[in-house]
């Protein structure tokens, strides 16, 4: 979580969830490079609004670079459609395989399109994660009418992730201090030790969840019982406006794509929509 009360951290949890949801629909609908590029830029803007720390920036950069490089390289290498143009010849024909091994320009382009799709949602997802406290997420879920018990369990699980990660690091440190070095005593011993390293973390997680469960049942928590809330969660008019804008964008793009699909499938066509068909083909 970043600086509480700054940037995206101030935005209502429901609005952030709606943003993530609409972004995921847009990237599924999008086909054109400009539209995907625009979505990636929008994701970047949202990400920067979350004011990531230097560590988070580094983490994001590395994960996105790996993601984009991996998708473009694999698509370029294994692109099977025609026509295709060799961009980088890796192995000449008949060296190992009849057609040789090449990186194709169309494959790289296709990989770029696919990675833009992933970059847009990844940036938005990171932005939401970095800027949303578990309780904000919890209140958002409750306000979206998610059952209390489900929302509570989901948020409790999120809360304990850093603790579990810390415990795992401690177990590794203890193992190293006791002289353990992976592979020094063979693969079998390494595998057994690696599996064993999970044992204290898992038993700690079980013990902790038991303690949490006992604590909350002694405070009256019960599935499906009516309960009151300390505060009513109300969206501000501005937030309603943003929500309406997000919904309108999703609906508009969905409508354009459906009409365009009906047209190219020769199910429905009207000349009145020729501009819309053109717009969809070029930009969406």
């Amino acid at each position, binding site marked *: 979580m970043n600086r509480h009360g700054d940037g995206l951290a101030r935005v209502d949890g429901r609005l952030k969830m709606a943003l993530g949801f609409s972004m995921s629909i847009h990237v599924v609908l999008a086909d054109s490079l400009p539209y995907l590029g625009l979505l990636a830029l929008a994701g970047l803007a949202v990400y920067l609004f979350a004011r990531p720390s230097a560590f988070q920036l580094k983490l994001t950069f590395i994960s996105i670079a790996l993601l984009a490089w991996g998708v473009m390289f694999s698509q370029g290498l294994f692109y099977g459609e025609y026509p295709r143009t060799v961009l980088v010849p890796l192995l000449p024909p008949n060296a190992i395989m009849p057609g040789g091994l090449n990186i194709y320009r169309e494959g790289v382009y296709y990989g770029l399109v696919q990675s833009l799709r992933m970059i847009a949602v990844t940036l938005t997802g990171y932005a939401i994660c970095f800027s949303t406290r578990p309780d904000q997420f919890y209140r958002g879920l409750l306000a979206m009418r998610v059952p209390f018990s489900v929302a509570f369990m989901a948020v409790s699980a999120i809360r304990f992730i850093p603790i579990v990660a810390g415990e795992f690091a401690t177990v590794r440190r203890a193992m190293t201090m*006791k*002289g353990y070095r992976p592979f020094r005593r063979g693969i079998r011993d390494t595998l057994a030790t690696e599996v064993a390293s999970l*044992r204290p973390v898992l038993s700690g997680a079980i013990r902790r969840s038991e303690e949490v469960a006992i604590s909350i049942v*002694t405070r009256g928590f019960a599935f499906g019982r009516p309960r*009151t809330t*300390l505060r009513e969660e109300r969206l501000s008019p501005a937030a309603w406006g943003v929500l309406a804008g997000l919904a309108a964008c999703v609906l508009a793009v969905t409508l354009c794509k459906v009409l365009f699909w009906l047209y190219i499938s020769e199910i429905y066509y009207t000349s009145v929509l020729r501009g819309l068909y053109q717009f969809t083909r070029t930009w969406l």
Partner: protein
Amino acid sequence: MIDLRQVTVRYGTRVEPTLSAVDLHVAPGELVLVSGPTGCGKSTLINCINGVLLHESDARVEGVIRVVDHDVRTTPLDRLCRFVGSVFQNPDTQLCTATPETEVAFGLENMAVPRPEMGVRIDEALALVGLAEVRHQPVETLSGGQKQRLVIACAVAMNPSVLLLDEPISQLDPEGADEILATLARLMAEYDQAVLVVEHRLEEVARLADRVVVMEAGRVRGDWAAKQAFLDLAPLRKLGLSLPHMPDLFCRLGRRERPFAPEEAPLLEVRHPMAPPSGDAASREPVVSLHDLRFAYGRHMDPVLDGVNLDLRRGDRVALMGGNGSGKSTLLNLLAGALRAAPGTVAWHAAPPPRIGLMVQQPDLMLFQLTVLDEALFAPRHQGLTQEDAERRARAALDRMSLLQHTGEPAFALSRGQRLRAAVASILSMRPGVVLLDEPTTGQDRDQIERMMDGLAAGLDLLVFCTHDVDTAARHANRVVLLADHGIIADGPPREVLFDAACLRAARIRPTSAQVYARRLGVKALQVAELAEILR
């Protein structure tokens, strides 16, 4: 308020009962302290009364359990919580929302308390525990003591007639423990609740209690009015309980009176001189030297340690003491090499440096093998020893920790104190020259601490342990290093350092009753045994 008659509890398929024919009655406005060695059934008793055992477990419970005229067996848990509040050991697993305000609201929301009434109850509860000022602060920024006070506020807000506290101060430093005890005192003064506190730290809690109940092996061995509880200390001593200092001292001296507070105790005549401290520390050869050590957890973070200079010598048994966040664990991890210090700031004098055994703060995280023997075998095996040699070493280490009879058992099936000793055995089997222990006393009873420290008494060049416990430092250290304000504020023999009132205050360490009394007598005795020796 609480009425238990002939309560017997058996878990799962176990034949031996965890609680056996327990009778207990607690009246309104009464604070009853329940104590006993680890595994005696104290927590089971709490979970009997709050209904968890009957409604949320497969334990077989016999006998009558009534709370506020309700039969716990037939009253649903969500109704029981309206008149029974529970506070457990670890505040971190009891807090489930973001701020103190929403945390207190959680129980009230579950009880469907109307919103306006909820606000009033939250205000009252937070004011009672002194957290009104921080009601909107993120829970994770609170100290351990504040978190546990918040848990008490959560229970109190539900207006229970009975409040159950299961080792509420066992995980806290002295400062946090004092906060909880002050809160309990305020609670007893303002409300008419029946309060049952399970705790092995008798010294701190007994002075608040109206009655003291002692348990052993699932049975109630004694139930006394607080003033009578410490007249005969033999049964408590036999159970390995940590005795309150002043009654212990006066009992050892064969006197009839049992003062509890050192300020109220009569001043006795010092008849014998104190034994001089043994050995000249400065003449021993240094094992490791810290030169201008500085460490921060991030480039832009404030340093935890800054300009630390320290020589640790052969034969030193060092107690690192200081408040939470003073850098004790950091220093230990830097010595162990688990954190990287700037080159030249941590210099080991031997080449190659001695083997270091580090016990982390949660010993359970050091136990990952299937049996206790495998735990002790892990390190020697990874040192490349033959199976025979490794086993010899492992058994020797387990013997030092009195665990030889548990070699075939899974470590997780052991008691908390045994798990602690199993973790220590797993590092002793490395034959380390240096052992570093991070808070080994937290949550442990006195008997377990003594058994562990006795096992570490010989065969080490250097022992360094972090602790908040003055008793442990006084008994087992020949040198105390106090940390505060990013550095060392005092370093010397326990008798010198632990009688420096200004340093103790700065390091947020509370002197024991024995120390306070010794100061009144004008002597520097740290332990009850030392005091008894000079006063006898």
